């Protein structure tokens, strides 16, 4: 019986193996197994040193740092990935190595720093990073080696069923929620970065790909690395600075869409075409591409794909929760976009696209509206699906036949067709068509009302909404969320048209209704609270506004977190209110903090950040610190143009504010250039009658007057006044303001009689609307008085001033304004032959005005001093 044992080449002893084949040495295997478990290092414990043998195939590095390279797993533009072994721990890793080329020290440092951050993450669905470093001319990091391939491969080979992908992405979203809470954004989500360990997703490549690139055009970087199709719209516009948790969510939405539909939303578009598609087009309806997609899953997907980050889920956890709800078969939280929202989107596209694009786009749009609306209607309550679907079909038919079809082939000859025109035609054709079909008529009226509101056509908007409200109350009851939505839209019109007491009553009622119905912490409740605070603000009830807003902010900070866009927005509004309460320093500090939060949590180019920049600049402006305001507005304009587009309302607001600051600084040419641009854009993208268009028109008119271009000023002001008279009514404060301004222009032109008419009209409106003590009413009194004095109507001036002065003494005692009024009274008396009394009044009060001239707004100062000088001279000469 001869010993069967052979000699182990490693320990040079008998292999001790009853399995005496296959080169197994039981002793060495045992040592190794025990060492693995004792977490000893493996190699040094072996008795005999092993000659260095490269495991790597030819063409690959044999070793990188402490790793033996086994194989190359993949290669991209920025990095190579190896399968490698760490002998000391007998561990298998995926080794990612920054692709060669001349070493860029700064780049490498950044790469390694970023890895440090990401390496902190420990989560069962995140691929752990164990180690990183620089060795043998490579910069590398080592992570878990996951064998099962990735989601991209899986989607190609064996697409998962909707429930499977929902379960997979729920886990992925939870991992991302954890990472976001740790302050780490993925930045480069795509199917190939979701590895599969069996059925378990493991997220890889956090933050790295994007970080390698030094900011700038992400679309092009993505085109190099792989694909830009997972980039959120804000990232496409704003570059890597716009990447945020919300852009991660968008990418996950694209992945969900792709898994369900077999293609990304804008598959086929090139990197150059993508930005335009992302800002104007909607993805093809999922259920057209993949009819088996459950409706709720489509709704969840669309919520992630919202163009505006603030309209997506508030965080990954919410997204994950909704997927869990879907999987559990309970009602999801995401709401399919209402018909109104769908149409708003259509309107948005319409404005920019309708004028220029072909009928094909619109046909496609119509198709999208059809399919999604049908889906939407049926989701609400499966039981009533059939009935509601029938109603939805009727709605859609109406929209198609009466609205969208007008832009069809036969209308191609009218490329300038306006949304307004389309709406008017549709409006007219409703007539009595839907009598007896309230469930069809209500949503159509709502859509039309909301759309008219969005283009500033309040009277006709109100007609539609009021009718919709009556129908909704009958159909759904008075406090159903659909009824409340219409109710709230009507209340908002009261705010827009500055029917403030009514608006306050309505918003107050809605706030209470929402609070009782949905609880004090519900987003809808908090939104109505903010609305109500805004109404208080317009009403001058600043204390109430502040109290309510502070309570709302406290709730928002608790419920949504301190850095939620809603919270940040509410804080911005509070900043405005503090400003108006004259607590400018406090307001500045508060909004500075708000801005810091917005920058930190949302990024420098987020819309909310840009809005906050603009409002902080407004406060600095009020503090006359233009040197602080201008850089903020410059930044807001630049970021806005880049991240949101030059036609975005937030960009235009920033440009408008900057124009106003230039105006105040008397940099008139710069102001004119900028404001002209804003006006042109608003006219084109909004409607000529939109309140914001009008506001800019007013500023531009003021600028024209200042530059001596009186005809242009008069022409603009006359137009604005006509619109405001029509839309807001004659006693509205904004109407009064433009009427007053028109009067000034006419006076400058020498048309004093016409000017007087306008000023008297403004005064009457202000007395009625604002009361006799309001500073604008008192200003009107002075204006009318000056005008009458110029026209030689001294007696009328005296009567007016004697009536107004007690109010002035009450509201503005001892100010230059009241002094000016007394000066005017003195001048009237001098004209009326009561020289000594009048002269003394003029002299004393002219001195007071001159003494306080610093407090006169710079813009009107020279004019007022001239006026006072004239009275003084006249009084002197009457001696």
């Amino acid at each position, binding site marked *: *019986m001869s*010993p*069967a*044992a052979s000699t*182990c*080449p*490693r320990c040079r002893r*008998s292999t*001790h*193996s*009853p*399995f*005496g*084949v*296959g*080169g*197994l*040495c*039981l*002793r*060495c*295997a*045992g*040592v*190794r*197994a*025990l*060492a*693995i*478990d*004792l977490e000893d290092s493996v190699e040094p*414990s072996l*008795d005999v040193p*092993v000659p260095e*043998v*490269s*495991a*790597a*195939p030819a063409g690959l590095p044999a070793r990188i740092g402490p790793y*033996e390279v*086994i*194989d190359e*797993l993949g290669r991209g533009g920025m990095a190579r990935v190896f*399968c490698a*072994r760490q*002998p000391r721990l*007998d*561990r*298998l890793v995926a080794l990612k190595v920054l692709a060669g080329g001349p070493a860029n020290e700064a780049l490498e440092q950044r790469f390694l720093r970023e890895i440090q951050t990401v390496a902190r993450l420990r989560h069962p669905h995140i691929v752990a990073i164990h180690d990183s470093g620089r060795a043998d001319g490579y910069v590398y990091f080592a992570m878990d*080696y996951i*064998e099962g391939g990735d989601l991209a491969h899986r989607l190609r080979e064996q697409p998962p069923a909707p429930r499977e992908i929902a379960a997979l992405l729920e886990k992925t979203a939870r991992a991302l929620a954890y990472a976001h809470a740790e302050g780490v954004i993925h930045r480069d989500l795509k199917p190939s970065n979701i590895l599969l360990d069996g059925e378990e997703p493991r997220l890889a490549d956090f933050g790295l790909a994007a970080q390698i690139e030094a900011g700038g055009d992400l679309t092009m970087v993505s085109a190099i690395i792989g694909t830009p199709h997972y980039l959120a719209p804000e990232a496409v516009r704003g570059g890597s600075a716009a990447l945020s948790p919300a852009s991660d969510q968008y990418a996950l939405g694209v992945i969900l869409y792709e898994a369900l539909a077999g293609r990304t939303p804008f598959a086929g578009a090139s990197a150059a075409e993508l930005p335009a598609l992302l800002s104007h087009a909607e993805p093809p309806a999922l259920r057209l591409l993949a009819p088996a997609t459950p409706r709720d899953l489509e709704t969840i997907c669309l919520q992630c794909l919202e163009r505006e980050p603030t309209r997506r889920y508030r965080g990954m956890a919410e997204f994950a929760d909704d997927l869990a709800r879907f999987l559990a078969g309970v009602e999801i939280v995401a709401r399919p976009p209402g018909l109104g929202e769908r149409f708003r989107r259509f309107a948005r596209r319409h404005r920019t696209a309708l004028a220029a694009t072909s009928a094909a786009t619109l046909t496609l749009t119509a198709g999208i509206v059809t399919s999604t609306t049908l889906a939407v209607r049926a989701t609400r309550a499966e039981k009533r699906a059939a009935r509601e679907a029938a109603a939805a079909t009727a709605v859609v038919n109406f929209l198609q036949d009466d609205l969208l079809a007008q832009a069809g082939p036969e209308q191609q000859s009218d490329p300038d067709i306006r949304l307004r025109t389309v709406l008017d035609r549709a409006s007219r054709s409703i007539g009595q068509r839907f009598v007896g079909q309230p469930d069809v008529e209500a949503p159509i009226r709502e859509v039309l009302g909301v759309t008219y509101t969005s283009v500033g056509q309040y009277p006709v908007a109100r007609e539609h909404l009021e009718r919709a409200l009556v129908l909704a109350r009958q159909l759904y009851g008075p406090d159903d969320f659909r009824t409340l939505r219409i109710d709230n839209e009507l209340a908002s019109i009261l705010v827009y048209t500055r029917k403030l007491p009514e608006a306050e009553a309505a918003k107050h009622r809605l706030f209470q209704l929402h609070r009782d119905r949905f609880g004090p912490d519900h987003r809808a409740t908090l939104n109505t609270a903010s609305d109500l605070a805004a109404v208080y603000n317009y009403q001058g009830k600043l204390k109430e506004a502040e109290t309510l807003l502070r309570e709302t902010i406290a709730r928002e900070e608790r419920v949504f977190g301190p850095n939620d866009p809603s919270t940040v927005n509410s804080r911005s509004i509070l900043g405005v209110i503090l400003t108006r309460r004259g607590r400018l320093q406090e307001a500045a500090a508060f909004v500075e903090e708000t801005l810091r939060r917005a920058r930190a949590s949302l990024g420098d180019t987020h819309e909310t950040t840009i809005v906050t920049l603009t409002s902080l600049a407004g406060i600095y402006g009020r503090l006359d610190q233009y040197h602080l305001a201008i850089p903020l507005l410059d930044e807001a304009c630049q970021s806005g143009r880049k991240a949101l587009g030059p036609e975005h309302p937030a960009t235009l607001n920033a440009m408008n504010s900057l124009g106003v600051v230039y105006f105040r600084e008397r940099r008139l040419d710069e102001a004119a250039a900028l404001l002209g641009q804003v006006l042109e854009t608003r006219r084109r993208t909004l409607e000529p009658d939109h309140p914001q268009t009008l506001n800019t028109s007013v500023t531009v008119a003021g600028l024209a007057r200042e530059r001596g271009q009186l005809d242009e000023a008069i022409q603009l002001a006359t137009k604005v006044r006509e619109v405001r008279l029509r839309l807001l009514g004659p006693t509205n404060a904004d109407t009064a303001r433009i009427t007053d301004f028109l009067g000034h222009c006419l006076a400058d032109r020498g048309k004093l009689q016409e000017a007087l008419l306008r000023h008297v009209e403004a005064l009457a409106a202000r007395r009625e609307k604002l009361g006799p003590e309001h500073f604008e009413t008192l200003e009107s009194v002075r204006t009318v008085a000056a005008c009458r004095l110029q026209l030689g109507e001294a007696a009328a001036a005296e009567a007016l001033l004697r009536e107004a002065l007690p109010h002035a003494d009450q509201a503005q005692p001892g100010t230059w304004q009241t002094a000016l009024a007394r000066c005017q009274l003195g001048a009237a008396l001098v004209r009326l032959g009561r020289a000594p009394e009048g002269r003394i009044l003029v002299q004393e009060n002219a001195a007071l005005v001159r003494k306080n001239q610093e407090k006169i707004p710079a813009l009107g100062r020279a004019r007022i001093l001239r006026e006072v000088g004239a009275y003084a001279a006249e009084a002197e000469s009457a001696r």
Partner: protein
Amino acid sequence: MSGSAATPTSGPQEGTAFASTQWSLVLETRSDSANRRTALEGLCRAYWLPIYGYLRRRGHAPPDAEDLTQGFFLYLLEGDFLDRPDPAKGRFRGYLIGALKHFLAGESRHASAQKRGGGAQFIDWASLDAEREFLAQDQSQQDPSAAYETSWALTVMSNALRRLEAEQAAAGRARQFGVLKGYLSTTPTRGEYDDAALALGTTRATVAVWIFRLNRRYAELVRLEVAASLQDPAEVKNEMRHLLQALRG
């Protein structure tokens, strides 16, 4: 006789070769319980080789060593020895060698009776090539006690290995195991990765993963095997260190 040991999955000892029962279970169960006897039998069958090796090193000829091993196990199973207090009871390894020495001390007096073992064949020597396995491990320079320790450690490794092979076969990976088991003791070189990948029709990276998993699983099974021989699971690391020492020795 040769060959049977090389294919353990087909041998009559199949299923009892693994220390699937726990030493702690033996100690906790009442002496008259049938469970205790079954558990102890399982352990004895798994660790016959260190006993046999010790006896051979003490100079007993193979047939005598077989008889004594057999007699010792019967003495353990049928006597009250297990119920006596013993500080070495915590570890089956220590307990067994102590009991063996005690048994041998009394053996001269009861030689004939114990040798026949009442006729019961506890270990089926016919199915084992005991001498071949002994020789495969034997190091002539070792004294009987050191040989016992080395043999014990190698037996632990071998038991775990059989269990690993059975698992792999049950999972339909017998062929993979056949190609890759050698890499439980050594890391493949460049050419070996390629050969294995070619033989198994897969990539080098996949080969690397399979080897990695095989190593991990083997380490786990070794730990389970060690734990099964202890009364207190907290002692596992110490016992493993002891075994590591024994293997290196």
